């Protein structure tokens, strides 16, 4: 990165607090593919001068995969530890590029004493755009076919279908919808801790079914808003040997590329 990523601790040392805390998430921190999404998002924020911080070493897993696997103990251990850290920094507003972190922080932390305004990165960017701080122009995606895969934990779980689409439309791309989209969307196959295990026996894997559907729209880009969906769709595209023709990219990556960041 050609600029410094500041942590909450850095801000606290300066006696200041940032506009927003960027919750990076485990995938965004450790997964090589997802790290690119993290960096792209930071570049956009830095470019338009949004003061943000990350927790860095003080961040832990939100506990989402443990919870959905059925392990309430591990989940709450993570949650209560995170809430202690967040409350110590008096965090008010959190943005995250992972719908699973987003959902857990937003919906499951309040009952445990963690009350924050939690927003998904597409919602945040949409609001920045509406405030006139973020300007998006078509750039290299003008006229290209893009299809968007709704993440379950953003769409179905939290009712957000529009923010990602509004951003994509700003790219002047041709947004093509899959047959199963929005409330009828199909899971990528990674949710509920499936990401971390082999799928049960069946006719095919869920991500193959979903990628097949995405490819049938003949897109240039399959856009995602979740690091896990991104992995699943990338694997699917490789399965069909289409990885030279079709790109799988998070919306922030598309925006960063359009701006040549």
């Amino acid at each position: 990165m050609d600029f410094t990523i500041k942590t909450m601790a850095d801000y606290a040392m300066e006696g200041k607090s940032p506009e927003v805390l960027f919750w990076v998430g485990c995938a965004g921190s450790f997964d090589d593919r997802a790290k690119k999404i993290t960096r792209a998002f930071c570049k956009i924020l830095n470019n338009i001068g949004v003061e943000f911080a990350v927790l860095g070493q003080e961040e832990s897993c939100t506990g989402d995969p443990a919870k959905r696997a059925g392990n309430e103990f591990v989940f709450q251990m993570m949650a209560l530890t995170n809430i202690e850290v967040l409350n110590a920094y008096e965090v008010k507003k959190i943005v995250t590029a992972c719908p699973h972190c987003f959902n857990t922080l937003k919906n499951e932390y309040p009952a445990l004493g963690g009350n924050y305004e939690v927003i998904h990165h597409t919602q945040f960017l949409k609001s920045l755009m509406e405030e006139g701080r973020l300007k998006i122009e078509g750039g290299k995606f003008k006229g290209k076919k893009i299809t968007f895969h709704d993440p379950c934990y953003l769409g179905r779980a939290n009712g957000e279908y529009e923010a990602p689409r509004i951003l994509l439309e700003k790219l002047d791309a041709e947004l093509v919808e899959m047959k199963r989209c929005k409330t009828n969307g199909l899971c990528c196959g990674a949710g509920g801790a499936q990401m971390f295990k082999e799928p049960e026996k069946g006719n095919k894997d869920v991500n193959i079914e979903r990628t097949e559907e995405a490819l049938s729209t003949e897109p240039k880009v399959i856009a995602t808003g979740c690091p896990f969906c991104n992995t699943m769709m990338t694997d699917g595209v490789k399965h069909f040997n289409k990885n030279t023709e079709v790109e799988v990219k998070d919306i922030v990556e598309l925006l960063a590329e359009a701006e040549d960041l």
Partner: protein
Amino acid sequence: MQYIDNILFVILLVAGFGLFAKSLQKIYRNIQLGRAINRSDRKAERWETMARVALGQSRMVKRPISGILHIFVYVGFVIINIEVLEIIIDGVFGTHRYLATLFGSTFYSVFTAILEVLAVLVVLGVTVFFIRRNFYGVKRLTMKELFGWPKNDANWILIIEFVLMVAFFTMNGADYYADQLAPSQHLAGSFPISRYLFPFFENFSLETLHLTERIAWWFHFIGILFFANYLYYSKHLHIILAFPSTWYANLDLYGKFNNLDSVTKEIKLMMDPNADPYAAPAEGVEEAPSKFGAEDVFDLNQVQLLNAYSCTECGRCTSVCPANITGKKLSPRLILMKTRDRLEEVGRNIDKNGKFEDDGKKLLNDYITKEELWACTTCNACTQACPVLLDPLSIIFEMRRFLVMEQSAAPQELNLMMTNVENNAAPWQYNQADRLNWAKD
């Protein structure tokens, strides 16, 4: 001797509804076997939800064909119940078409005409449903999991409804032609459909017409009593239980799973440096539940058990389930059906023994397998698809909790993931100190 009809009618009526009440009582008792859950908050929103979803069928029309046909059958059913009221009044008091005297002839004509139109729509609905189920091959209605009773049950319901409508038209048609032969004062009403359905009635004598009308009338009445008592054995219970199920539905966002309070207490105690681990629990403090998650129907909550009875096996959940679509064993519909089967088995056990005697069976493994439970991606497509807001995912989730927290029986890879979360604060085995490495590249 002239009152014998009325006496017989009242006996049948009381017996029929008495039996029906008894079945409902049994269902109520079985649901009470579950854990109590407080869903009495947000009352206004609950009434609104019930009115919109159960009464207004708002979710049915997401699939327009079955949705609209279902509304035909549903509206027909509701309106025709007013006619049942007339049958009961006539039966008890020996009157004939009592509502005509109450409504006045114009209004009564409109009323009977509407009933006839609705009855035609019901016939249309059930006929198309029968074809879709048996010949046309709608996938969710012809899946293997419905073979046997579920499929037969669905067909019986359609046949019974069809036959009841035929009896209804026969009754009206015979009445109409009898009135043509010997106009009576108390036969008002307009019969725009049935009068054309039975041209051969024209040749019947007055006695034959009266007899036909009586037979159809009694058949209709007994059919309704039979139908009411059939409900208990049928998926058709949803015509009653859809209402409480939507009222008690989970009103939170789909993504919000409940947090176990007992676990919170434990962990807060663990994290509190000043806590005395040997301290006796304070007086009056609620004890932790004896079990985490659900192994059997007793561990599920009452709304989940009510859900199991309310499921009409339409399979809209299963048809959108990513696991099921890709050929895995999980079917949200079957989760509810199996929960009901087990609950019924427990109910019969209680009927027989006075209280539940251990039968060596559990909902987990004997009915629902681990393979099904672990195939769920918790995507909530099933809950979003259900026309009556049932929540099969919550049952899957509680059973996973049991597998993990009581039996440590998660798939090996998930155990690894959970250990990583516990030790490294990430689902992968990375060092927490490396969390910011991405910023250095």
